[in-house]
């Protein structure tokens, strides 16, 4: 008993249990009452509709005042900050006009049309061959063939619009990320400033700064491009920093000893040596750009994303599915191409000019042949409409009959989930006093890292509580927690199963790879098909999306248990089961915790998108802020979401790190 009183358990949960039990002494603890006690719900919080809520500290008002200031105040009496940003947007527009003309509008001044499909297709195939080989070329070719063939409802044009936007946003984001990354790698003060900013930017939901983009940059394709750039540059900056910092000291010394000055060092030694991480950064940038395709449609960027959104809103699932496949194909193709670029090594070619530059020459030849073909046969210029196909009608019917036949069992499952799992969980989370949550989080932080972590996480929680959106935030936490539970129940067993054999884990990891490339909105499709509009469909979408890291990390953790330890266990006479539970699982546990952390981040991200199908948590408020163009509210709620994520991230990563230290693993 004495041992129990001194235990960690009591230290961490004691104050929390005390506060929770207070509910039986203090009246008005529930959110159902008009004025709940301040110990339970922070004062001035929104309880139902959050129209104009002040919050304990009026962050939203402050932010809105700042935004107003930036809109109105004229720097040097000449121009406002907004004039400046709008001018920037116009530069982006110039670039956009070029790529749009190239891909789908045609150059009006020159009297030429956009690039014919045959050229784009051929170039994609040659590029695939160049980067890796015929398999990659087939993927690229297959992707563009799909876009051409299934273009009955204009998928080709939409794809070209999307690609035009990406081919402006991706290079710009990569360039900005690269430059910031280099500066941060060189100057410590800038690194200290940039790194936490990147953390926040990467955990901020997209919708929250979409509003700011609208205010400062307007709407349409250019605004979409700018929102995409803001979203896509952080991983590039991060990977550039890591890449430059991880160059071996010998290589840098070799540069110094050769007599490089600062610029020679940067361009001839450091950037080329950090080539792989930088290229990986470009891959990340492209994937982030694709993830934004649908989200940018909210601020009026035309393209695949916009049409997907419209079809989803109209519940025209067959057509949505067809567009969804196009988005996924483009995503997978661009991902594989840029990954191949990242690992590509320079190849030695000697001999005649044809042997030296085979790809340059075949590209030129292909362009010449295609141009001739285009000029002779109009077929190659514009794929005839009557030859395109569409499967949307059949798909619609298939989906309808499928859901109809499963209507009863799925309905039962859904209601069962709601009544026996989700609703009780939601009620529990909503009855948690904010003071208690803050103490709990602080106590765990104290256990893990004393003052530093304790104070940081408590400040995060306090921010959420004082912003006025505590009740909504707890619903978000509940959704994330429920998804995390389900993801662990699916992901850990699947990971254990897959880790048993080499080929199994390869297969599962490959499937994970493919699923991870899907832009997040795609996951809403099956969710709506199966469960209509409810918490269950939101959680279903979240779970498919965010089980991926759980599976991946479990496999990685189990497979990276050192071979000699496993051999030692087997020679000690462990059965397979004992080997798993007594040796491999404990050693893989820190890695699984990291997986849980990633899963949490993924679900937080997906919860925000699931707001689109009507959950009542923070995401709903963000969507509301978006339609009222309330920049301050959007940003503050976004920060609430980011802080939920960062709190969990701090604690879980630290926990995993300390466990690894205890087990004697380096790093």
């Amino acid at each position, binding site marked *: 008993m004495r041992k129990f009183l001194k235990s960690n358990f009591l230290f961490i949960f004691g104050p929390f249990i005390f506060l929770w039990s207070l509910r039986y002494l203090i009246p008005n603890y529930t959110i159902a009452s008009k004025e709940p006690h301040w110990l339970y719900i922070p004062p001035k919080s929104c309880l139902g509709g959050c129209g104009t809520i002040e919050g304990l500290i009026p962050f939203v008002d402050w932010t809105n005042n700042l935004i107003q200031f930036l809109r109105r105040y004229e720097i040097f009496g000449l121009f406002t900050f907004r004039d400046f940003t709008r001018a920037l947007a116009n530069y982006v527009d110039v670039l956009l006009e070029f790529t749009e003309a190239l891909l789908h509008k045609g150059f009006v001044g020159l009297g030429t049309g956009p690039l014919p499909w045959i050229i784009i297709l051929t170039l994609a195939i040659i590029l695939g061959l160049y980067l890796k080989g015929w398999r990659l070329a087939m993927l690229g070719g297959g992707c563009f063939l799909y876009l051409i063939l299934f273009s009955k409802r204009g998928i080709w044009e939409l794809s070209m619009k999307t690609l035009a936007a990406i081919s402006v946003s991706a290079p710009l984001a990569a360039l900005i990320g690269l430059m910031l990354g280099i500066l941060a790698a060189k100057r410590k003060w800038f690194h200290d400033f940039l790194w936490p900013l990147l953390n926040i930017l990467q955990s901020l939901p997209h919708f929250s700064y979409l509003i700011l983009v609208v205010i400062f940059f307007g709407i349409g394709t250019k605004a979409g491009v700018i929102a995409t750039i803001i979203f896509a540059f952080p991983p590039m900056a991060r990977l550039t920093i890591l890449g430059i910092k991880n160059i071996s000291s010998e290589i840098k010394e070799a540069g110094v000893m*050769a007599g490089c000055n600062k610029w020679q060092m940067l361009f001839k030694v450091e950037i080329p*040596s950090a080539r792989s991480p930088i290229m990986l950064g470009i891959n990340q940038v492209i994937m982030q750009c694709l993830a934004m395709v649908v989200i940018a449609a909210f601020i009026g960027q035309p393209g695949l994303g916009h049409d997907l959104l419209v079809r989803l809103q109209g519940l025209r699932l067959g057509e949505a599915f067809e567009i969804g496949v196009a988005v996924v194909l483009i995503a997978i193709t661009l991902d594989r191409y840029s990954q191949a670029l990242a690992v590509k*090594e320079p190849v030695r070619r000697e001999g005649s000019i044809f042997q030296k530059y085979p790809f340059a020459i075949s590209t030129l030849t292909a362009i010449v042949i295609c141009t001739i073909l285009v000029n002779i046969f109009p077929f190659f210029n514009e794929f005839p409409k009557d030859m395109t196909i569409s499967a949307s009608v059949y798909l619609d019917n298939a989906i309808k009959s499928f859901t109809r036949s499963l209507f009863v069992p799925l309905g039962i499952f859904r209601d069962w989930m709601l009544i026996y799992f989700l609703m009780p969980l939601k009620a529990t989370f909503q009855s948690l006093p904010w003071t208690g949550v803050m103490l709990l989080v602080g106590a765990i932080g104290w256990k893990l890292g004393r003052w530093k972590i304790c104070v940081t996480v408590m400040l995060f929680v306090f921010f959420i509580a004082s912003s006025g959106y505590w009740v909504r935030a707890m619903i978000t936490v509940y959704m994330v927690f429920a998804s995390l539970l389900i993801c662990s129940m699916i992901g850990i067993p699947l990971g254990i199963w897959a880790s048993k054999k080499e080929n199994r884990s390869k297969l599962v990891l490959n499937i994970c790879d493919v699923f991870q490339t899907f832009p997040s909105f795609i996951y809403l499709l099956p969710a709506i098909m199966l469960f209509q509009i409810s918490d269950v469909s939101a959680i279903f979408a979240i779970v498919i999306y965010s089980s991926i890291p759980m599976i991946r990390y479990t496999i990685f953790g189990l497979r990276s248990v050192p071979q000699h330890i496993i051999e030692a266990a087997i020679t000690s006479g462990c059965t397979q089961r004992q080997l798993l539970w007594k040796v491999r699982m404990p050693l893989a546990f820190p890695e699984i915790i990291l997986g849980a952390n990633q899963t949490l981040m993924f679900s937080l991200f997906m919860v925000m998108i699931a707001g689109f199908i009507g959950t009542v948590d923070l995401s709903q408020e963000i969507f509301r802020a978006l339609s009222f163009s309330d920049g301050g509210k959007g940003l503050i709620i976004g920060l609430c979401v980011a802080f939920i994520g960062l709190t969990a991230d701090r604690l879980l990563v630290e926990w995993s790190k300390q466990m690894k230290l205890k087990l004697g693993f380096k790093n």
Partner: protein
Amino acid sequence: MKNEIKISCKNIWKLYGENPQRFLKTKNNNPSTDDLKNNNYIPAVRDASIDVLTGEILVIMGLSGSGKSTLLRCMSKLIEPTNGQVFFEGNDLLKTSEKELIDIRRHKMGMVFQHFALLPHRNVLQNVAFPLEVQGQDISKREERAKEVIKLVGLEGREKYYPRELSGGQQQRVGLARSLAVEPDVWFLDEPFSALDPLIRKEMQNEFLRLQSMLKKTIVFITHDFDEAIRLADRIAIMYEGLIVQVGTAEELITKPATDYVAEFTKDIPRSKLLQASSIMNIKKIDNPEGTVKHNEKIEKIASKILKSEKEFTVLDEKDQAIGTISKKEIIKALFSEN
């Protein structure tokens, strides 16, 4: 020529810790081991003074963490010493400007690294030409020179290969070629052969000796392998915990070790590789010897023929004058006695 000083290090200190410069000053530039320990300073190099003579091969050796690499990097100012002076051809390196330093490195220094430090995105030719490219030489001139050096290290025909396509030994040949491309006066080699297999290592040592016999550079060579040091060095400096314990020829280190550490270090070295005929011979002269040996031949080479014979051999000096005799007895005594 031989005794001209090329690089001179005077009282070099390199400490890691908080504001080491101020700490050194408060301790009159001479803190004791306890001072350092109590104040949480990690000494990499302590009070090291050494001269590198023109045209010699100076080998600095010691175990890992003994400060030998740090000392080497202080000589080229890759690392700024906490205190002390480094003179390169009489100029204080620590006072030269960044621009002059770049100039010195571009024309007078070459360095070879333990893990080769080749730039992975450049082929052999471009790697070797890199220091020349940095100087701003035009492409035809620098590639011509690079081809010369590549030929010198025996990599002809591999100009277009990328580092990942070469074996470790070949990669280090590229490293050697790159460091020689600018025709440096001083050649720094930081454990250049430690990452190679023993057989390749031997081959590369021979290659190195061949190059040096042609080029006659001033060389500072770092190693932790005493065998290697003996094979290559004119003089050896032994470092221990940041201190230079002894400097001398290999024979001096073995016959007159300055400290127990040096004695311990050199204990297992086969004497046959080091001692030469003149240092173990008998000074009496005889009339009808079995044969003759040169005064500077190592025991290793002559032992077998002397041991096979019951008679004595005459030792000859440079001018082929007899200076003493040597027999089975001397050889056995030299090889198996404790000092």
